[in-house]
């Protein structure tokens, strides 16, 4: 997929429906993310933000509509799913590092097995990205020996080592202590400035202001409003958005 870069948006979502049993989690979502675009998705809990980005790499299976990632449709075809997961990195709220592998092994395992990179090359890449997230000295430690902020930065490095074209962030700072949030956001801002396509579910409105091209507000499984951050924060017309913003920014 690396060699053929089809034109068109990085992610196109058309009429997406998702049910959990009888609960309608996502209702007819339409969203298009351009290459190099940074999207921030926010909204109250239970609004379907996480479900939406988890559909993009098929951690959740959608029930209706179409998702096209980098020109490949996400359907039951296992080859398509594998191909898309190779190109889409994901960072989780709870880091989800492999606790039985060192930081370096966490970063090397997927490139070596999925991308079939030789060990030396995988290690060079891993060390480069660990340097980028500013923890090269922790390479030989185990995840359990690091702080939350450090673990999350390793998780970002691990995803980047696959050299993905799109990065998904699912509330990456929600499980962190306040002083660790900044170190993770710094890494994300750097990544954004380098042109990575990013879809971030986050409540960090400061990050949205600094890095996002577009902010999307979701509620009740629907996209209520989307706008560039400046417009979104200052002149939202929607009642629900304004209420949410007053709660998030209000103190």
């Amino acid at each position: 997929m690396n060699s053929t870069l089809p034109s068109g948006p990085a992610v196109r979502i058309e009429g997406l429906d998702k049910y959990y049993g009888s609960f309608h989690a996502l209702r007819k979502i339409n969203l298009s993310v351009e290459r190099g675009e940074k999207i921030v998705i926010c909204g109250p809990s239970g609004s379907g933000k996480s479900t939406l980005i988890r559909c993009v790499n098929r951690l959740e299976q959608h029930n209706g509509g179409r998702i096209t990632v980098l020109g490949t449709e996400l359907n039951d075809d296992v080859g398509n799913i594998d191909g898309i997961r190779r190109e889409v990195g994901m960072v989780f709220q709870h880091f989800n590092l492999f606790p039985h592998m060192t930081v370096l092994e966490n970063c090397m395992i997927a490139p070596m097995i999925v991308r079939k990179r030789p060990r030396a090359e995988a290690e060079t890449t891993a060390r480069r990205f660990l340097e980028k997230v500013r923890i090269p000295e922790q390479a030989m430690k185990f995840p359990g020996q690091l702080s939350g902020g450090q673990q999350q930065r390793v998780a970002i490095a691990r995803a980047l080592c696959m050299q993905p074209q799109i990065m998904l962030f699912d509330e990456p700072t929600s499980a962190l202590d306040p002083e660790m949030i900044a170190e993770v956001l710094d890494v994300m801002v750097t990544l954004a400035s380098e042109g990575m396509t990013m879809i971030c579910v986050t409540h960090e409105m400061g990050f949205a202001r600094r890095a996002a091209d577009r902010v999307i507000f979701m509620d009740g499984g629907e996209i209520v409003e989307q706008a560039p951050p400046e417009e979104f924060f200052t002149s939202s017309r929607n009642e629900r958005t304004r209420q949410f913003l007053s709660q998030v920014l209000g103190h």
Partner: protein
Amino acid sequence: MVSLLRNQKVRNALLQVLYVGSLAGMVLACVMIARRNLAEQGITSGFDFLFKSTGWDVNFSLLPATANDPYWWYFLIGIVNTLFLGSTGLILATIVGTIVGLARTSSNELARLLGRTYVDIFRNIPLILQVFFWYAVITHLPTPRAAHEAFGILLSSRGLYVPIPNVGGVAFAAAAIALIAAIALPVWLGRTSRLNQPVGERLGIQLTGAAAALACAVVILAVGRLPDLALLDFPALQGLNIKGGLRIPPEFSALAVAIAIYGGSYIAEIVRGGFKAVGKGQMEAAQSLGLSPWRVFTLVRLPLALRAMLPILANQYVWLMKATTMGIAVGFTDFFMIVALTINHSGQTLEAIGILMAGFLAINLSLAAVFNRINKAIALKGNQLRG
């Protein structure tokens, strides 16, 4: 004086002295009563009997045995038999438990139902009933004349007959060790961090290791081969009975099957718990990196589940090792039965029971020590784990 008694340290010390003193007194009283009673019955205590010949036979032994052999040799035979039965039972129980446990965690409804039914049935019937059941089944197999045959193995009511190589005892043991190494080496090579290749890409080295160990086994067998005999001794019907090969008596098979099936139902629950303990997050992370379902299983799910299982598994293994003493119920000459026969024939009850207890302590403490070592080696490091 009164104030001294109110001192906490003095009180604690006094209690300790009282406790140790009364314990020592009880032990002393027991020993003296036992000595007097033994003397009254004209039994000489001591371990001299170990060097007298037994005068009776055992029905199954991996070591050469005659009625002229001394008691200590019979004890050794008993321990070897117990270890043979125990390790066979443990390995089979682990295989059964893994399959059933995986079935119970599978997404397939039928597999889950079958697994659950299995556990419900076999975990809730006493082991000794299961031993008797399998013993009855096995002794009702066809007579030697109508024995089932497959790959040179004969199965009849008199037992299971398997071909054995015509080699000396030492060479046979050495070859067995080499064979175990052929299985263990690839596993070890797959995990050790000293190799340059990453875990999961060491197939070449693993295969080389296994091949080398197998070659060793073949060489040892060729060197230790007894002259003028075929390499393999196949069992065959001669007259009314089967001759040749190694006979595994129905008593052993019944016990091994019962321990495998009963123990398997407990191990299945341990396996299920282990897999349930693996965080969904780690698996999702592995999936999102593009790893195939098989790789997610072998690289993330299984290693993490194993760490959750091992401590409980060690417990279960010790338990099943002790279950080999059921041998006496169907007449398999395990360590316990040898000790029971010794008591009948020599009257050295206390000594024999002492040896029995020491033997089982040694077996199970070593088992526990090995597992503790493994546990320690693979324990997850750090305490900041989440998810």
